[in-house]
């Protein structure tokens, strides 16, 4: 097996709140390999967005902080504890990010060209004129009509889909090796969603980069990802290929999650199954498995000690459960 592009080990992310210290992410580990697309899925609040932010060192601190024993290695280089100046050189250059809200993620008082050029000029030794040319080229690549005109537009003059295209153009302008896409299509119309996802797929092939797709939309994951990481309440529940996760889910949570997705092609069902119970409060976590409360397979063992996730080196799959489905 090749060395991973990104290797996250024992990642702990804590927040200081008025109810005390809260662990939003608790000792999770996973690897991302070059050129692959990995879906990071889970309910809102499970820690998936925070995980992606932590890779770039963007956890707001205070109140947040990354635990001391955590390790995030990018191409073998440790990112945790790296000086801010060095991290800055990597942001947007080696690792890029796309955000959920294209309405607010771009600065409203500068033209899109200005913002793109700022990124290009920061990471590449080019002058203004060349940067503008590159920005126009990027806009063209992401399928924006009349890019030489659009480059002088302000974000509010563009539609939501266009803005997300601009965001993608900006993120890819320095040919990153890893793209973190945090719910890139959630805020868009359904018809636009597919276009944007197709665009991301095309761009990924063109530039051969790895993508971490943070989303709660399992449909998108099934269509675009090779591997999936399922998170629940700050833990990783299950890791596997799309095929494994969707057709042979092992963790009861994964199974429940999949069952609650409405399917168009299947015959009519009487009601949509849901997972009963609620997600435990991060400030008041159970001692054992965090899903035990809602799990029909839970035993005493589950309540006593949390199950560990062991990832098979060869298949890169694994499940954190004492009683997985086979």
């Amino acid at each position, binding site marked *: 097996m090749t060395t991973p592009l990104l290797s996250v080990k024992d990642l702990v992310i804590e927040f200081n709140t008025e109810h005390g210290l809260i662990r939003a992410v608790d000792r999770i580990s996973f690897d991302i390999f070059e050129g692959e697309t990995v879906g990071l899925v889970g309910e809102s609040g499970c820690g998936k967005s925070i995980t992606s932010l932590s890779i770039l060192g*963007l956890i707001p601190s205070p109140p947040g902080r990354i635990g001391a024993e955590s390790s995030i290695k990018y191409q073998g280089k440790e990112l945790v504890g790296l000086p801010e100046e060095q991290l800055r050189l990597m*942001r947007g250059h080696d690792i890029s990010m796309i955000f959920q809200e294209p309405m607010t993620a771009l*600065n409203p008082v500068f033209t899109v060209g200005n913002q793109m050029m700022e990124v290009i000029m920061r990471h590449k030794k080019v002058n203004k004129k060349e940067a503008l040319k590159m920005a126009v080229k990027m806009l063209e690549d992401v399928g924006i009509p009349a890019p030489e005109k659009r480059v002088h537009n*302000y974000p509010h003059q563009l539609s939501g889909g266009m803005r997300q295209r601009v965001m993608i153009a900006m993120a890819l302008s320095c040919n990153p090796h890893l793209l973190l896409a945090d719910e890139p299509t959630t805020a868009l119309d359904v018809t636009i969603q597919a276009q944007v996802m197709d665009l991301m797929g095309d761009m990924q092939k063109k530039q051969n980069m790895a993508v971490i797709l943070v989303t709660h939309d399992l449909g998108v994951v099934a269509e675009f990802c090779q591997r999936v990481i399922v998170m629940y309440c700050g833990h990783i529940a299950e890791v596997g290929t799309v095929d494994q996760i969707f057709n042979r889910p092992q963790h009861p949570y994964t199974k429940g999650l999949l069952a609650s997705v409405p399917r168009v092609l299947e015959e009519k069902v009487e009601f949509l199954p849901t997972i009963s119970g609620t997600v435990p409060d991060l400030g008041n976590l159970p001692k054992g498995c965090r899903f035990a409360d809602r799990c029909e397979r839970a035993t005493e063992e589950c309540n006593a000690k949390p199950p560990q996730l062991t990832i098979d080196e060869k298949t890169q799959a694994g499940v954190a459960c004492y009683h997985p489905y086979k």
Partner: protein
Amino acid sequence: MDTLRYTLRKLLYSVPLILGVTLLSFTLMVYFGPDMAYEKLGKNATEEDIEREREKLGYNKPFVVRYGNFLTSVLTFDFGESFSTNQRVMDMFAETIPVSIMVALPGFILGNLISIIFGLWAAYHRGQRLDKTIMAGAVVGMSISFLIVVIVFQLLLCSDYGLNMFPTTGWEVGMNLEEFNILDYFEYVTVPAICTIFVSVGYNTRFYRAVFVEELTRDHVRTAKAFGCGPVRLLFKHVLKNSLIPILTRIILSLPFVIIGGSIIIESYFGIPGVGSVVYDAIVNGDQPITKAAVVCTAILYVFFLTLTDILYQVVDPRISLK
């Protein structure tokens, strides 16, 4: 052309405001104000003299007529003569306003600049020791009375008890181009400027910090950071320009109070012949034509600047368009 039409319409909207201010100041200062017949004629006047003077001043006319006369004086900028110096009020203003601007402006500009930098600095390190130190300093600054600041700085910098580096009072600065001397200017303006800065920095820093903190929580700031933007560029490009609307509003709308009324305390305490001193004397002596003129002129300037901010908003924020 659009801008012109927009401006004119905005100014039209401000007419009720001007009417309101004049009505308010008329009611308070003229209608319910002290009887000027007594003030003018002194204690030894006969009943008939007073009656005649009251007639002349129009005290027997109905409210509406008297308000009408007052409005006419406002529209023609003719506020009559000062009771104590018998100079025309507008002449006094024309003479003293430039002095006031020269006294107030350095402190005003520096005070705001320092506050903006402190505000940015504190907001960026929000919740950390630096932020807490700056904010604690701001609260201390806010808690000291202006009058105490003026007394202490004069004592420390202008008297034998302190460093005695600057003149205690006065304003011996040439007010036209030939006579103006920059060194004289520095000599007389330094201590008033320091006082202004000291008093304003606390309040301003708190205000600006709150604005910047809010801006720093916005998504586009996170985007900028995610693309490798450093703190200096982040603050001075992305945060500052986005926060310009509240900043400009605060600065521009405090300008009328700086220009007229100036700093009443500084000018009177340092014996600077600015409009603030004139207003101070007028308040202390009950010199009505001057206080009236000061109120109305400030209000008109305020409304003017209010319109100006509306127009500036579009320059600063591309999302706001002429409506």
